[in-house]
């Protein structure tokens, strides 16, 4: 892994307007998120449902127009139609649901060939077929299946088709939006291993979004934790997994199921009080303070900044101590 920053996200904000009666409320799906992804690494992004993980991924890829903030790719600011079009060749996405992310009226070769068609990446028909065959090989699909429709495949195979489509433009960076959540466990392992193989073979960089902490720990170089649209902890995978600092991360990790019942019984599960506040009415200061066992007056006043508590390990908490 090089130290070169491939992707820099600075103060990214993504707010949505939600009409409520006569007023329009702001839904702060992502609020002031800053992080970098180094070339060749996998950044795992975790958090509970509705915390803005997916929105971060989509905003980075400019599928939503960010409300504020900048995204730099390879040192270049992503802005304007032309840059975005070029950016689409370098950054791709793998979707969560392998059922709805493939057009039911298209054959596999058309699905995989679509990025090639859009960017006109071939000079003749034979070259296109050759490339599709290569991509299908790469993700472990038999090229005899090229003329079949997506509904004729199982979940794992469909996800492979989705990955082949993302790889068609030879991207450097892939946002994996919960790519294994919809698959059953044995298939999850196959697909996760394939992601690792592809990374080694093609030198890819991933932003791996998931809510399964074990999967994220397995594949990630670094882990970032989000809560209510804010990034609250980021650091090397082992460090975050074994020495979490933010109270939310601690409770999140205590909820990871352990396959050994003896250890599981010995572990104390940390239960959080209350519910996640509505992102339409965010609490002042730190968003986690309403459920935090360590909350104090300071937490209600200001949002803590991410600060380096241990080398490479950043935490956004007033009470965090190395």
């Amino acid at each position, binding site marked *: 892994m090089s130290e070169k920053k491939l992707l820099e996200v600075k103060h990214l904000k993504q707010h949505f307007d939600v009409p409520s009666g006569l007023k329009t409320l702001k839904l702060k799906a992502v609020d002031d998120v800053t992080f970098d992804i180094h070339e060749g690494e996998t950044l795992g992004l975790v958090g509970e449902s509705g915390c803005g993980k997916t929105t971060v991924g*989509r905003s980075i*890829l400019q*599928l939503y127009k960010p409300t504020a903030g900048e995204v730099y790719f390879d040192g270049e600011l992503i802005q304007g139609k032309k840059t*975005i*079009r070029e950016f*689409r*060749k370098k950054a*791709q*996405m793998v*979707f*969560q*649901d392998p059922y*709805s*992310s*493939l*057009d*039911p*009226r*298209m054959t596999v070769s058309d699905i995989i060939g*679509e*990025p090639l068609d*859009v*960017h006109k990446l071939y000079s003749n028909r034979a070259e296109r077929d050759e490339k599709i065959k290569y991509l299908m090989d790469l993700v472990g699909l038999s090229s005899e299946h090229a*003329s*079949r*429709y997506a509904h*004729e495949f199982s979940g794992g195979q469909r996800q492979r088709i*989705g990955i082949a*489509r993302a790889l068609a*433009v030879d991207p450097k960076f892939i946002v994996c939006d919960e790519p294994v959540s919809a698959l059953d466990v044995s298939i999850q392992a196959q697909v996760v291993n394939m992601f690792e193989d592809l990374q080694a073979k093609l030198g890819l960089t991933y932003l791996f979004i998931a809510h399964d902490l074990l999967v994220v720990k397995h594949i990630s170089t670094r882990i970032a934790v989000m809560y209510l649209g804010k990034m609250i902890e980021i650091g090397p995978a082992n460090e975050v997994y074994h020495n979490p600092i933010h109270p939310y991360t601690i409770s999140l990790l205590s909820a990871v199921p352990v396959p050994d019942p003896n250890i599981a019984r010995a572990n104390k599960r940390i239960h959080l009080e209350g519910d996640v506040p509505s992102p339409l009415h965010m609490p002042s200061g730190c968003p986690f303070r309403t459920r935090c066992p360590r909350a104090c007056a300071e937490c209600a006043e200001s949002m803590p900044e991410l600060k380096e508590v241990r080398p490479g390990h950043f935490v956004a908490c007033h009470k965090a101590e190395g």
Partner: protein
Amino acid sequence: MKKNNETLPKKNPLSLQLDVSKFELATEDEKFLQQRMRPSTTFFKDGMRRLSRNKIAMTCLCILIVIVLIVTFVPMFYPYDYSTQLGITPGQPVDGSFKNLKPFEYSSTELARIEAGEKIFPHIFGTDALGRDYAIRVIYGTRISLIVGLFASIIVLIIGTIYGSISGYYGGKVDLVMMRIVDIIYSLPDLLMIILFSVVLKQTLNLEGTVLEKLGVGMISIFIVFALLYWVGMARLIRGQILTIKQQDYVLAARSIGAKGSHIIRRHMLPNCISVIIISTALQIPSAIFTESFLSFMGLGVSMPMPSLGSLASEAIDGYASYPYRLIIPAIAICLIVLSLNLLGDGLRDAFDPKLKK
């Protein structure tokens, strides 16, 4: 059997446990025989297969095919013409015996020629008050009605699809404005509009010397009215479909690839609402035929001497007491076409709508 059992633990006589020794491994050949690859099927093939199982729809399809064949080919070799008044030959006195013949009846001159050994094609449905063969007029009228139905539906299809998909895809303010326009058009009473249009167009349109002259102002105004008014239903339907499809991940995936709006509409959205398009077009044809018949009946449709089913029925009203078959024949033709198309449309919906899939 007993020998093998010795190695296994003793079995309870009532146990349902399977005897492993009775099983043997399948050979490679046997495994191969078990492989069943379902042939790859397309959406269209699948739908047609289901349609072909629907007896009512298939009967209707056959009736429609027969009607289309008749109206296309019969006029080519039919001995009479829809506009020729029989018994009128230039330079000779008018032969009145051709008027108002009953089915299969011959005029006195024809009878005389038959006596002389000539063969004469019968007037299957008789002749009308002007001495024109009625069978060919009905065939011609059916042809006109079908053409009106088909073309009006195509116009509606094209305008409605383009308008609806643009409105649905771009959404927001564009959608709001476009749909309010649709609402305004929808709220206008269509028959009043058609009557006004045909009256105004008759005076303003100058068709003399053009190809369109033969069609007549009435037909042109029907097409214009369909183009202006009837696409709104289709546009709403397509918009609704597009709005649902827009939420699908594969549209987002296409955007993340870098596809433009027109590409997404063409490659992803329209193919996915093709079933709705097929069905509503099939159901649009009979409604267009019915409107045309209705207008012709009121005297606003095709212009003389060209017949349409509606105008034939309208003319027949006068002599209804003496010649009821002249009203019944075109009425049956209208019913047959409209009913067949409606039932076929229903069959298509059952076959192509994935939500009704069993």
